[in-house]
């Protein structure tokens, strides 16, 4: 069980994701779970199970941005690789941004995950949500 924002979530041990290197600048984020926000789709929590911190709001960028392409960054050739991007919530939702430059890849077959940095310069760390 894990508590995020005063709400308790149950998770199955078999769903724990392994980030061998942690996230960039957050090496403690090695074992985490992805918890869909049932009433706040398409968003999910990505939360460390070690000490419940840190946790992030994440989203599949393809749910928000048309034609998001990670190029050669997903070096592993797992066919069902999932892509997530970290969302920085602002108290004004129109100012919320998504980190498209450093997506998180998760291999659902092995539950291994890693954060990569796209080097083609197409995307930024703070991309605004399309309003239209």
């Amino acid at each position, binding site marked *: 069980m894990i508590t*995020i924002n005063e709400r308790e979530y149950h998770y199955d041990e078999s769903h724990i994701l392994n980030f061998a290197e942690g996230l*960039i*600048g*957050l090496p403690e984020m090695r074992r985490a779970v992805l918890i869909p926000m049932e009433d706040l789709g*398409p968003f999910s929590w990505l939360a460390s199970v070690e000490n419940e*911190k840190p946790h992030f709001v994440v989203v599949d960028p393809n749910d*928000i941005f048309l034609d998001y392409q990670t190029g050669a960054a997903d070096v592993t050739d797992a066919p069902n690789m999932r892509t997530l991007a970290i969302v920085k919530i602002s108290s004004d939702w129109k100012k919320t941004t998504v980190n498209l430059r450093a997506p998180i890849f998760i291999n659902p077959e092995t539950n291994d995950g890693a954060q990569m940095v796209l080097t083609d310069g197409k995307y930024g*760390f703070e991309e605004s*949500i399309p309003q239209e």
Partner: protein
Amino acid sequence: MLVLSRRTGQKIVIGNEIVIEVVAISSEGVRLGISAPTQTSVHRFEVFVEIMEANKAAAGVLDQDERSALQDLSAHIRSKQK
């Protein structure tokens, strides 16, 4: 910090797998070639710091205003998906 002198074409090895070669030296700067296992990430330090700060800024508990912003955002995205 360990400080070494190297000439063009000379290398340094870190651990058993990471090799850094001085490819070229000019008045503009030094060009380095880095060979590392695929699972080892290599970044320019400034980029690393930017991502680290972006990650840290996004981590953590949402306050009441941010939670209601997330509700509005979710509603906005779902209305577009329909």
